[in-house]
């Protein structure tokens, strides 16, 4: 099994750490992983994205142009990455701030309202965990307990008390993801 | 009187200088680089010297100055702007040549070029934006980082013992006979910005009069590097930077204050 994912959004949305937790989770279940961020001054208040690969085999190129899954968190990233999903692949997105919804019909498109859910939960910072939950629901590439292990590994000890909250966010995300069909769209 | 009655072309008293391009500044919200850029261009515009002005912008957050300042600019290697400007001023003695440098650029890697351009008294203006950090590369310690101040390469705060004291480059160059005018300014409030603008104007006047080198330090914020909001950073700057880097003129007309 190889899963090639791009996660893309604004700098502050926790894109990189979501990727990192995913990668750590992969390690917990003995997979090969790679995590490759975009970097540089364009990050300054701008976009951030990271390519994560989980695989049972040695990973060759950590840098990809097409993906099994794209997790998209703002319009700029939608413009850039909608076309990069492999036919039959998955596009998961957060609809807030999206003006041009995806239009491809050869891929599976999902929505998760991470903003709303995290606000409801009273902690904007777990936004990315909600989105992660949604992804794991669609594609359980890593098991939940491994994600929790991954969290433990990636968070410094002093933040471990936050793990239950994160777990809750992931579960919320799992329960809230919905399929998006072109018809769904309000015209 | 209705607001719309006021907002008429004939009533306009402030707008962006035409020497600034339409490109959105790449700086973080509230970064003093933007204000310093604008003030500089306003001075050049008001003096009517834009056709004879050549800017030199080395590496640092302001490396893209040429995207924003609508004048001729050459981008210089990290730390070498004073050398680049020296050559331009020497081969075009009638032009106005200025450098726009960060504290990492001017006071770390560029120390020799700074000292020697100052010592030779090149007929140029150096605008030195001291934000106590390497902004562009992600907030590493600069020579001007304050004692105890955290940065990505002094994550537990600058330790004088191992990292040295914050360097007062401005006071240092003021000792050199070739330097004609040295001042330290800020741009985060209207009062400071207006004073800074006057200082910049004086500096370019010095160039016109072939007085030699004018050196303007602008103590500024780097909210990204300091990990604060812009307003927090400005307060922190007043409380911490200004006592160590006191504002005001240091050398005027070749005479130390």
């Amino acid at each position, binding site marked *: 099994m190889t899963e090639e994912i791009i996660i893309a959004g604004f700098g502050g949305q926790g894109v990189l750490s979501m990727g990192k937790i995913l990668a750590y989770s992969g390690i917990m279940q003995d997979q090969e992983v790679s995590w490759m961020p975009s970097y540089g001054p364009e990050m300054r208040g701008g976009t951030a994205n990271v390519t994560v690969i989980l695989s049972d085999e040695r990973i060759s*190129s950590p840098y990809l142009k097409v993906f099994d899954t794209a997790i998209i968190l703002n319009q700029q990233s939608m413009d850039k990455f909608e076309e990069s999903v492999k036919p039959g692949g998955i596009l998961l997105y957060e609809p807030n701030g999206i003006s041009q919804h995806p239009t491809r019909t050869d891929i599976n498109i999902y929505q998760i309202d991470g903003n709303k859910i995290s606000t409801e939960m009273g902690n904007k910072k777990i936004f990315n965990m909600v989105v992660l939950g949604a992804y794991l629901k669609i594609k359980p590439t890593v098991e939940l307990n491994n994600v929790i292990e991954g969290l433990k590994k990636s968070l410094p000890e002093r933040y471990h008390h936050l793990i239950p909250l994160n777990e809750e966010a992931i579960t919320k995300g799992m329960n809230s993801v919905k399929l998006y069909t072109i018809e769904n769209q309000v015209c | 009187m209705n607001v719309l009655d006021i907002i008429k072309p004939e009533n306009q008293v402030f707008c962006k200088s035409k020497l600034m391009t339409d490109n959105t500044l790449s700086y973080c919200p509230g970064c003093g680089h933007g204000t310093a850029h604008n003030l500089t261009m306003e001075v050049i515009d008001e003096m009517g010297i834009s056709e004879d002005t050549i800017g030199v912008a080395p590496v640092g957050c302001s490396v893209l100055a040429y995207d924003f300042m609508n004048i001729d600019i050459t981008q210089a290697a990290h730390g070498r702007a004073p050398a680049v400007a020296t050559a331009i001023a020497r081969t075009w003695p009638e032009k106005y040549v200025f450098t726009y440098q960060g504290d*990492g650029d001017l006071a770390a890697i560029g120390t020799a070029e700074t000292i020697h351009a100052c010592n030779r008294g090149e007929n140029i203006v150096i605008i030195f934006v001291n934000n106590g950090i390497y902004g562009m590369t992600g907030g*590493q310690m600069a020579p001007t980082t304050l004692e105890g101040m955290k940065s990505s*390469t002094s*994550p537990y705060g600058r330790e004088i013992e191992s990292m040295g004291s914050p360097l007062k480059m401005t006071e240092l160059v003021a000792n050199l006979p070739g330097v004609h005018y040295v001042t330290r300014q800020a741009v985060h409030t209207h009062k400071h910005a207006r004073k800074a603008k006057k200082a910049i104007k004086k500096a370019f006047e010095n160039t016109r009069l072939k007085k030699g080198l004018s050196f303007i330090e602008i103590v500024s914020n780097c909210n990204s590097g300091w990990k604060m909001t812009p307003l927090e950073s400005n307060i922190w700057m007043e409380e911490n930077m200004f006592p160590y880097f006191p504002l005001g003129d240091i050398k005027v007309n070749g005479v130390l204050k």
Partner: protein
Amino acid sequence: MSELKLMKGNEALAEAAIRAGVDAYFGYPITPQSEVIEYLMTERPEDRTGMVVLQAESEIAAINMVYGAASTGKKVLTSSSSPGISLKLEGISYLAGAELPAVIVNVVRGGPGLGTIQPSQADYFQSVKGGGHGDYKLYVLAPASVQEMADFVEDAFDIAFKYRAPVLILSDGLIGQMMEKVFLKDQQERLTDEEVIKRHDSWAVTGKTNRERNIITSLDLQSEKMEARVRRLMKKYEQMEKEDLRYEEYQTEDAEYLFVAYGSSARIAQKAVQLARAKGIKAGLLRPITLFPYPKQVLFDLADQVKGILSVELNAGQMVEDVRLSVEHKVPVEHFGRTGGIIHTPEEVLEALELKIINNECIRHH
């Protein structure tokens, strides 16, 4: 026992340096490798092992600090990226000339000039042919994974001290910035000052005791002496070629076409091999792990087996010269590469093979 972590290449290198018992790091920030010094400063290796970490005022100061510590027999490391490495070249030439052990890391970005901060392999010539002045070479290790970023630190120091010569780890923004699993070795004890003196008392400047004074210099005003020095250096390089060549082959046993690629390009070319095989094209990959010494003989031999060779590099054509020199014109050798920080895709690489080698071959044969 080793520890498993998920780390950036730059961080893995820094952590490995602490664990390898490196005595000192001197560096100056530059993208895409600032994580090396940032990680070190955060880890406070001064407390962990007594390792010295200092942010220098410039790359030139840093390389000359390396020269200083290396003069005394200490294990010393620096890292930078392309423009910063250019500034270090005088110092690197001095290290080579004075026969000092040291490890230099270049996390390459796109040049020339200020260029771009994206990954690149455009410093191959500079690294392998001698960027600085004079007759010298660097032993050059090209990691292709985060694991190798970690492992090569110790390997590099082993070579550096074996030959008393500077070693370059030639990485790039891709390998430096990506995270992968990495197995970290256990902490090695740093040598005590007494051990350093004991080991290196024949040459290192640690204070003249009951022996002849030690002198570190690259100067020989007499040409005869200088020529002898150059000959000594050349001997070392020959020995490196014999004893310390490293490379890796991937699906070359039955390959009819060969990619040659190192570092991040090798990762991509490896995938291109898979794509090619899926298409029925018998492709293979030779990955030079050391760029000097270069796997000349391996390539020379492989050239008897394959029909054509594509050198895949993130540059405008540099290593291809070494491929050509090795192959001695037995089969066609072409170059493919993207520049300026663009990373070629496996698909592009395969397409280039088809276009430049396979199809051309048809043209040639008919």
